[in-house]
């Protein structure tokens, strides 16, 4: 059975994650782009959204993303009783001032204030973009630096990509995921057809591979692995191979270190299509296997 079978006729989604940042997620998704035929792309790394930089993207629509409120204290009404500061679980109020970066918008302070001096106001948490690229539509976003609700913005990016895929009859969505294992990663992984974990032969990346694989298993997402910069350390590659065998996870590709990846990046291009070098060839093979396994 192919892993896509259980999804039926619906749009399939493939999410690329890594645990550790900087292992090459975006370079790989960008390189898949010219190899796809009928895809929608979604950059779910909403606080460092870089995929559009190498996809020759032209923004077509922009939408405001308002997902939270923050507390504001009216100094004219405040009698400095300190009730708000005592009740705030996030240490967001000090000396009768709200630190809006720590405020999570729970409104408890505004409800306890005896003077009605605290109001809750909508804040712009970010923006959502739909762009055209030579390879298909790209949905991406910008979370305002310091904002929360990255998980909600990720969900909005995915929903928008799904809508576009249905409207335009596109068969699958390629998601460039965020690093880590927390809320935006979970929002990028839940309910998807399969995930590709990009790792590299460093102890850090291996440690994070184990953690992000646990998240995939926790949410029942079928995982695949690829090893980037696979020529960096032979012993660590063996460690990854043995780990994946133990876990029953298939390694779909090995990509050697290739300075053409950075050269292509400096010209705002994915390496595939820029230079027919070692990395390009191995990414092509990886994509063919992935498309076959996930029946994209």
């Amino acid at each position, binding site marked *: 059975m192919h892993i896509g079978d259980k999804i039926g006729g619906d749009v399939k989604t493939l999410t690329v994650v890594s*645990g*550790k*940042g*900087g*292992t090459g997620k975006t370079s790989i998704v960008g390189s898949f782009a010219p190899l796809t035929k009928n895809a929608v792309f979604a950059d779910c*790394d909403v*606080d*460092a959204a*870089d995929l559009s*930089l*190498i996809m020759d993207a032209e923004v077509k629509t922009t939408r405001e993303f308002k997902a939270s*409120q923050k507390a504001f204290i009216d100094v004219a009404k405040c009698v400095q009783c300190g009730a708000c500061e005592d*009740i705030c*679980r*996030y*240490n967001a109020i000090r000396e009768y001032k709200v*630190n809006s*970066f*720590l405020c*999570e*918008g*729970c*409104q*408890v302070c505004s*409800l*306890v204030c005896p003077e009605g001096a605290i109001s*809750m106001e909508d804040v712009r948490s970010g923006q959502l973009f739909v762009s055209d690229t030579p390879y298909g539509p790209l949905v991406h976003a910008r*979370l305002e*630096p*310091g*904002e*929360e609700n*990255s*998980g909600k913005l990720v969900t909005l990016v995915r929903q928008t990509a799904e809508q576009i895929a249905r409207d335009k009859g596109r068969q699958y969505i390629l998601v460039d995921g965020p*690093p*880590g*294992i*927390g*809320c*935006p*990663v*979970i929002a990028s992984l839940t309910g998807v057809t399969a995930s590709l974990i990009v790792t590299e*032969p*460093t*102890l*850090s990346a291996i*440690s*994070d591979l184990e*953690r*992000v694989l*646990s*998240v995939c298993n*926790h949410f029942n997402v079928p995982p695949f692995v690829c090893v980037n910069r696979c020529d*960096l*350390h032979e012993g*660590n590659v063996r460690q990854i191979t043995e780990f994946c065998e133990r876990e029953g996870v298939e390694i779909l590709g090995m990509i050697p270190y290739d300075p053409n990846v*950075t050269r292509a*990046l*400096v010209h*705002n291009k994915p390496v595939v299509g820029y230079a027919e070098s070692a990395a390009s060839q191995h990414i092509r093979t990886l994509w063919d296997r992935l498309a076959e396994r996930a029946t994209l």
Partner: protein
Amino acid sequence: MIIAVASGKGGTGKTTIAVNLALALEHESNVQFFDCDVEAPNAYLFLKPQIIHSEPVKTACPTINGTRCTFCGKCAEVCAFHALAVVKDRVLIFPELCHDCGGCELFCPQNAIGKKEHKIGLLESGYAGNIAFFQGRLTPGEAFSPPLIRALKRMVTDDSIVIVDAPPGTSCPVVEAIEGSDFCLLVTEPTPFGLHDLILAVELVQKLELRAGVVVNRADIGDNKVEAYCAKEGVPVLMRLPYDQELAINYTQGVPAVGVLPEYQQRFLQLYQDIKGLARPLGD
């Protein structure tokens, strides 16, 4: 003195810089090291601390006392996160939406709400040589790391040089990690991705009113646009580390540069002196 090491983009070398800075300073002063990248903590691989204390970090979500609850709906009304809903004679609780603000418990007129604690990860501490080492480990499957980072940072003591290894990105876990620091080092690489994410990180430190400087890692790959941006914005570039194959191979095995290559000891001590000159003055 609290020095946070952050970056918009992941994988630029935060942990490398934080670890080497800590090692360079360990014989000069009391050093506390905090790995606040609780989703992907890796500094332990380089510092190899002996962990002597480990405790669970918990958050709470509400529970309803069925005999007291009158289904009045007040809890759902005060919850800004929609973590509770009251339908006829049932209260539905969505723990994954709960921010543990305490509002429902506080405003329930029947005192019918208690709380159930829930472990989100571990706070571990110990020593790596002379360095007091602290790390958080978020349990895979858990979404919210800020409470764990908050718990970690409660261990900061004033009389030490405190080095905080922050998570990547610019969202709420990063704010928790770098907030309150006297200086923030932003590690980047000279590529379009590095620059794009550096600009976001600079925006964040400016909003938080933190003093900051840049470390350009793998300074000889890519282009010169990061340097041009820093010059234009007046953000000081405090260190440039060229790509070094020997260092990269050491990194794969968890071996930090300081200790293997003696010149790095001097370079990181100099980095600390430069930071001291630029950091928020004591008592400010």
